[in-house]
């Protein structure tokens, strides 16, 4: 979660990073089919399951957003 926060901090006009507690926001987590945590949803399209290194998260962002 901290990695997502770091990313938002770098460009807060474009990036919104939310840590979502799955128990309290059950509807949302069911909507995405969250089964394990941490699970990062990128623009409601990309997914990164588990805590991953910065490089891998960046690769997933590029894959989801393009460029």
């Amino acid at each position, binding site marked *: *979660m*901290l990695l*997502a*926060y*770091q*990313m*938002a*901090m*770098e*460009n*807060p006009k*474009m*990036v*919104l*990073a*939310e*840590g*979502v*507690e*799955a*128990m*309290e*926001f059950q509807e*949302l*987590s069911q909507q*995405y089919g*969250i089964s394990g*945590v*941490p*699970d*990062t*949803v*990128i*623009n*409601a399209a990309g997914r990164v399951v588990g805590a991953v290194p*910065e*490089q891998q998260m*960046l690769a997933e*962002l*590029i894959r989801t*957003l393009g*460029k």
Partner: protein
Amino acid sequence: MEKMLPDEIVKQIRDVFKQLKHPVELLFFGSQARCEYCNEIQQLLEELIPLSGQLSLSIHDLEQEPDLARHYQVEGKAPAIVITAREGDQLTDYGIRYLGIPSGHEFTTLIQSILLVSGRDSGLNPQTRAYLKTLTTPLHLEVFVTPT
């Protein structure tokens, strides 16, 4: 009212908060309509804030302050904590939110995110910084966690 943070934990947090470089303000958004644990979270934050002179807190209600909720993109998302950088009266929104109860491991994450914002630097590597700076479409990251 009984304290939520035990003395030993308070001591540890005080020590960690010595690293705080710049002021941080937490905005807590509760909801009278639907928020089972809002009182507890508010109390927790109210116990946390006095542990450093760099910290401040403001308490809000989603229904009573819809414009502010919209501004911070937390509509319908109580309980929500927005972690901002404060310079005097000026708040800078870094796009950092925690939705839910910050207990267990997530309490540690809350402390870490306060340290992060206080440092005013993401600490990311140059390649990641460069990519994020040139984003042309908004990026929304939702990181699901459970309070283990």
